[in-house]
């Protein structure tokens, strides 16, 4: 599974970048850019612009999300911001406010 975990009591203010899966349970502000998957868990709070391949959100995200593959908004998530990805899934129970753009050119 994911190598990197940002625990629930951790706060990061700045930029996170990398080539591996990232699980966020804590608070992140700033910018996240990954070449792999991002998991925003229920306890997490993210205020950041996100650029990843895949993202799965169960927690809170404020910011624009751009994924090269897929964005998944799970039940109980709260997302505010624009979402751009070829595949976007919004589950029943998810709360979302923002623009959706699935018209992404394939890379």
């Amino acid at each position, binding site marked *: 599974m994911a190598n*990197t975990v940002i625990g629930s009591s951790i706060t990061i203010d700045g930029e996170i970048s990398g080539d591996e899966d990232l699980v966020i*349970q804590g608070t992140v502000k700033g910018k996240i850019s990954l070449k792999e998957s991002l998991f925003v868990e229920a306890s997490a709070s993210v205020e950041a612009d996100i650029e990843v391949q895949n993202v799965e959100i169960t927690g809170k995200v404020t910011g624009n999300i751009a994924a090269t593959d897929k964005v998944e908004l799970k039940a109980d998530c709260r997302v505010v911001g624009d979402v751009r990805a070829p595949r976007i899934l919004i589950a029943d129970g998810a709360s979302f406010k923002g623009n959706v753009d699935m018209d992404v050119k394939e890379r």
Partner: protein
Amino acid sequence: MAATKDFAGTGESTIIGPSILINGKLSGDEDLTVRGRVEGELSLTKTLIVEPSGIVKANVQVRNAIISGVVVGNISATESVELTREGRMVGDINSPRVIIVDGASFRGRVDMGNAEPRPASERPAQRTSPVSRPMVRPAAVVAPVRAPVSVAPSRQPTMVARPPMGKPQPPAAPVIASKGDRETSKPAPPPPPQPVLVGEAGKKKVLLKKKK
């Protein structure tokens, strides 16, 4: 959801994977393991573990730090800092316990914060004695011969009143009159140190008198 809760509950630890770069401020109340890079500022109320692949370029405030990777920056720990065999660090360490193992590489200052109390207590005692000496010495310089005489302060004042006039006077009487004389005397310097100097001049005469 259950899985998530378990993970959060038991996993009181954060891991920064080897390909991850975090640039900015990082703070928290749990253990943090760094296998990637962290730059900026790092503050934890628990333990920071920098693994061999980890690089931290940051000012670090933690309770404990165990460093097997690379740290560039200052570390201030409330409990301990340990540089293991593979650890490399450049920066200052401020911690009550600092452990540097054979094989570790380190450049910087170490402050365990407990070396001061003893020297401080010793110094004051030494200082007090020198302070008193300076008062005596000036007089000696003016009139080296008197130095021994100066030991008896009562005699000196009497002479102060009449350095020029100073001629045979009974030693006992001068002492009493000396106060009045000083007040009347024009040059009479008010501060205590000066009287000693004047006394020296008088002392010369006094010595003569004594000899007589």
